[in-house]
């Protein structure tokens, strides 16, 4: 698996798109920091970008990589390798190279800016960790979609739909259901609703850092326990890990049964 990982990773690290992705974050970081001189604002803007863009890039890149390397995968399949190693290797290759672009692209300008001397370092690290989680989750989801759809166009379609759903539509439905059922105690429901969507989950993690003052304005005891203690952080990270593990398990499972 490590060998596949290595080659997928280096293949991707040299691809044009990795550079574009890396350059985008580098530019974003530089513009936010050096033109604005406002670290807190930069972190908030970055959060918005990461929550929306990272899942999108992860999904599209994952699907694209899978379809583009289909023949190569077939070549690999004829080699004495386990199927799970091939797909996990490729999956990790994609996720790691995307994460690298993200971490380096944003990290370099922040280090140049003197991040280590600033108290924002924790907020920033949290952003990067969340971004990395989102990359791993959405690449895994993309691989799942691609593995289940031979048709490239269909696969892309589903991938975009998935992103659209989790990034926007889900929240819309979530909001509607909270308003419709506002006469009932909702704090459990709202926390559960958050856990079911990795984008919301990551957003919550970041809210814990940026908007704790507002979150503590709500009365619910469960809310208070969730956001007021480390419980929220622990549960969020645990659920994010589940969001990585479950799709990856399905990749292994699905790849074993698939014909090429």
């Amino acid at each position, binding site marked *: 698996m490590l060998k596949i990982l290595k080659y997928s990773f280096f293949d991707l690290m040299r691809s044009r798109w990795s550079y574009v992705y890396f350059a985008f974050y580098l530019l974003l970081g530089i513009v936010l920091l050096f033109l604005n001189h*406002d670290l*807190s*604002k930069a972190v*908030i803007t970055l*959060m*918005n970008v990461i*929550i*929306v863009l990272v899942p999108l890039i992860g999904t599209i890149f994952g699907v694209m990589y899978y379809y583009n390397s289909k023949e190569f995968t077939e070549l690999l399949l004829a080699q004495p390798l386990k199927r799970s190693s091939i797909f996990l290797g490729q999956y990790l290759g994609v996720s790691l190279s995307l994460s690298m672009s993200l971490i380096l692209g944003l990290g370099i300008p922040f280090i140049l800016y003197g991040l280590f001397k600033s108290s924002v370092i924790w907020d920033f690290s949290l952003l990067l960790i969340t971004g990395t989680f989102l990359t791993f989750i959405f690449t895994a989801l993309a691989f799942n979609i691609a593995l289940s759809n031979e048709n490239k166009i269909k696969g892309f379609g589903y991938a975009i739909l998935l992103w659209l759903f989790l*990034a*926007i*539509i889900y*929240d*819309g439905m*979530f*909001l509607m259901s*909270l*308003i419709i059922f*506002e006469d009932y105690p*909702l*704090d459990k*429901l*709202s*926390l559960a*609703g*958050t856990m079911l969507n990795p984008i*919301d989950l990551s*957003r*919550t993690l*970041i*809210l814990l850092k*940026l*908007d*704790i*003052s*507002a*979150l*503590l*304005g*709500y*009365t*619910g005891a469960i*809310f208070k326990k969730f956001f007021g203690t480390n419980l929220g952080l622990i549960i969020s990270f645990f659920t994010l890990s589940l969001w990585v593990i479950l799709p990856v398990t399905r990749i292994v499972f699905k790849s074993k049964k698939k014909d090429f």
Partner: protein
Amino acid sequence: MKKTFVFLLAMFMAYLNYAQNIEVCNTCPISTLKAAINLANDFDTITVRKGTYKEHDVLINKPLTIVGENYPVIDGELKGEIITITSDNVTVDGLFIINVGTSYTEDYAAIRVRKSKHFIIKNLVLEKLFFGIYIEKSNYGKVFHNKIIGDAVAEYNSGNGIQLWYSNHVDVEHNYVQDVRDGIYLEFADHCLIKNNVSSNNLRYGLHFMFSNDDIYEDNTFENNGAGVAVMFSKKIKMFNNIFRENWGTASYGMLLKEINDAEIIGNTFNENTIGINIEGSNRILYKNNDFINNGWAIKVRGACYTNSFLENNFLYNSFDIAYNSKVNDNVFDKNYWSSYTGYDLNKDGIGDVPYRPVKLFSYVVNRTPETIILLRSLFIDIIDFSEKVSPVFTPDNLLDHNPLTKRVTW
């Protein structure tokens, strides 16, 4: 020159004659404060040496100066009030007063000033108290450099750190109050100055104003109090350069303004409060040069608030800048800096070319269904906020800052 010398000499003689110094210590002939007060003549000074004195209900009924040396301990043994002052011109300085009795019917204090003038309470340390310093119907006094450390757990059986009741022209300065019910409490107290105090970790309010007019409070720090600071039913209050920090909770405010008219709120910093300022029924208030940083809601306006002006404030990284619960707006927002302003400034005059709309639709949604707060900063919410911004339906459409600044205001 000669005349001055003669005068000073005369003064010195007078002092020798009339103002005696009485010493109290555990091994002295006079070993209790009570005995010393009994013996003392008006304008005497009582020096209390280091030691522990188990006394309560000490009544100071003549103009005396009581000075503690190296903080002698006055231990009330939880039996009731410890020192009560009923005479004018009393100074109490440098005592360590502990173990005030708790009662559900009477407000026992560590030190109470009743119907007196020109008192000075300074350099006291109060611990294990019910009420700390209680100024009752007394005017023209000073309370400064005291340290009040309570251990309050519940509101019903705890008292306030410094309480002014029907007392005017009192200066409260450089005190440090923590872990009591209300740090500093003013009721019917006019023309008072509250300055340079630190009031933190109190159960209810760091500072609590009721029916008190023409007061000034400035350069104080209010931190991590149960409900922040409450200013209610008062007129012409000046609030300058205070810091309100980390007041977190459901009903917790940096500052709660209720029925306040003609106040000036200038140069204050509101940092990381659930609600920076909660305003109800308050009119003609000037908010100027305040910093609102990282609050849940910088300003929440409830009920009728008219002709208030918000000028040249900094609104930085608040989850919500302004929340309104009505569609009517009679307040002015001008030349503030809003960190979430996204407009441009083509002519580079430091003023954004597009007006800023500080009330978001989402703040209405949260007001109605509080649980939706969990969707804060979601892309969907940004989209509906944006559409509301373009064509306001729920938010007051004249609530605009026409001159949003592009750089932080400095003063």
